[in-house]
């Protein structure tokens, strides 16, 4: 039995029935990591010994939890107590957190095992995982291409069988876009649905931790565990968490979904368009009523996002000054020189670009024209979406405007930022959105479909995605 090709639900069942030991599961995944990492480079840290020790502990327990013995890859901007957490930045290169993120604590309380920490664009700022300070990650479907980003390490690890599932973070599409590029399922939950405690802040009003898995059911099981209010995050929601797995089997025939017309699809890769149309036909076959709808405010979403996210980043990343933790410039200069030299040496080019952009947008004389205007635009986008959700249950879009692109193909920042065109809206509005693989391009690259729903409607999204998944049967496509 190949344990690394099984999904979370299947492995869970085998471990619960004692047909397989957690230790065997971890050993199989560590072997897989050994075999695949030279080609993929998904992990910044592999927790081999720790993971095996934990697996043995779980094998001895009577009631080891819902996710007992399952190896989970954690994006390296989610803190893990006593395990190095770098954010793929030189400035946190040796940082070992004294505590774990609430999402990680919840996973571990249910017996899940952190198998390693995965690569990302530095501090989550990027769409390709090329902007890591350490090395780039490659797409398991075609190693000449990027895995997407910024959660490219987690997506690549899950797609290549190095972990059964993973956690990423999504500020403008950073779970969904790599999920689409790597042929896995990824969810950005409602803002507040999952605690952000221990997620290293990039843009606090947009950031959410989200799961990546090889099926909708696995994604739902993981969300079930990590969701819920948290006294350690004042922006987390104490709304009850529904039983997502049970919701998968509900009837959904009376649902309505909005889709984008031709105008919104201008400039989109033809194969993405074709996959989108196939996805819509599949939904129609499932009995979903489809309604074409324009979203005129969306054309401002990217510009709005690229003011708000860098503004928040410039404030959040002010903490990296070489004083309390992280790298410090070893020079003997003044305090101000230490700040300057530490930050200048510690941050990479994209992080500097976004800090500068945000500093500018918040600076005296420009605040009203940029930050205040973006905040107003964000509310305009939210009002448009709120109106749409009075008429439909879902909004369906492609996840990305193109399949995974070649490594090094997008040197111009604006061209890279356009990768987020379909995903940023959900972050601006705080609504949940899921990407699931819908097919392959002619060159064998996965293509993703995005299902957006209203606040806290994750159960409905999982349900629709589950039906669609059964219809399109993407799992029959295998990585060469």
């Amino acid at each position, binding site marked *: 039995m190949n344990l690394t090709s099984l999904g979370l639900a299947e492995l869970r069942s085998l471990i619960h029935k004692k047909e397989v030991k957690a230790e065997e599961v971890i050993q199989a995944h560590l072997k897989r990591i050994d075999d695949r990492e030279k080609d993929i480079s998904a992990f910044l840290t592999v927790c081999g010994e720790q993971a095996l020790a934990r697996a043995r502990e779980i094998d001895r327990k009577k009631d080891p939890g819902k996710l007992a013995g399952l190896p989970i890859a954690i994006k390296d901007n989610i803190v893990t107590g006593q395990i190095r957490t770098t954010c793929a930045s030189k400035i946190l290169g040796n940082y070992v957190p004294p505590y774990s993120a609430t999402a990680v604590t919840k996973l571990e309380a249910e017996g899940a095992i952190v198998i390693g920490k995965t690569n990302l664009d530095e501090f989550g700022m990027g769409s390709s995982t090329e902007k890591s300070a350490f090395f780039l990650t490659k797409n398991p479907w075609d190693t000449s291409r990027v895995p997407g980003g910024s959660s490219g390490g987690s997506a690549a690890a899950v797609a290549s069988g190095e972990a059964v599932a993973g956690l990423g973070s999504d500020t403008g599409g950073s779970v969904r876009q790599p999920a689409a590029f790597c042929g896995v399922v990824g969810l950005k939950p409602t803002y*507040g649905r999952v605690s952000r405690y221990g997620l290293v802040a990039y843009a606090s009003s947009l950031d959410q931790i989200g799961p990546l898995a090889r099926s909708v059911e696995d994604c739902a099981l993981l969300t079930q565990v990590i969701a819920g209010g948290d006294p350690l995050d004042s922006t987390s929601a104490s709304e009850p968490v529904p039983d997502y797995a049970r919701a998968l089997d509900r009837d959904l025939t009376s649902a309505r979904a909005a889709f984008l017309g031709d105008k919104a699809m201008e400039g989109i890769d033809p194969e993405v368009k074709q996959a989108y149309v196939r996805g819509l036909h599949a939904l129609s076959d499932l009995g979903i009523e489809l309604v074409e709808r324009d979203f005129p405010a969306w054309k401002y979403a990217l510009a709005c996002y690229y003011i708000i996210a860098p503004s928040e980043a410039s404030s959040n990343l002010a903490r990296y000054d070489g004083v309390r933790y992280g790298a410090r410039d070893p020079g003997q200069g003044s305090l101000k020189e230490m700040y300057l030299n530490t930050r200048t040496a510690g941050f990479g080019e994209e992080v500097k670009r976004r800090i500068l952009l945000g500093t500018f947008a918040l600076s005296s004389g420009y605040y009203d024209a940029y930050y205040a205007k973006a905040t107003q635009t964000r509310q305009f986008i939210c009002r448009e979406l709120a109106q749409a959700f009075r008429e439909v249950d879902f909004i369906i879009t492609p996840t990305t405007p193109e399949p995974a692109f070649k490594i090094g193909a997008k040197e111009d920042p604006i061209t890279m930022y356009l990768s987020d065109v379909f995903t940023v809206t959900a972050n601006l509005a705080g609504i949940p959105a899921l990407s699931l693989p819908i097919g392959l391009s002619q060159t064998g690259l996965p293509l993703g479909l995005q299902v957006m729903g209203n606040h806290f409607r994750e159960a409905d999204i999982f349900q629709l995605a589950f039906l669609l998944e059964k219809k399109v049967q993407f799992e029959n496509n295998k990585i060469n």
Partner: protein
Amino acid sequence: MKPPIDINYVCALARLELSAEERTILAPQMVKIIEWVGQLSNLRLNDPGSEVFCPLPLPLPFREDETRGSLSVEEALANSPEKNCGFIKVPRVIEEK
């Protein structure tokens, strides 16, 4: 056209320094990005909304104002670049004349 951004001033505010090579690349990119995001000025809004926006669709919960456990001094200092006698050590703040 005069670029809308004084890169030296913004770098000083952000406590960053750019090398000559970085400046050559970043300065024109910044101008281009600022022009691109400036498209928002074309949007005329009847309802400007509030200046502060929270994406959580619920009222923010308050908690009781009570003390809780926190990191020990040793844990808090474990990642400090330089420490001395239970304190973080930094360069002299008040410079000698």
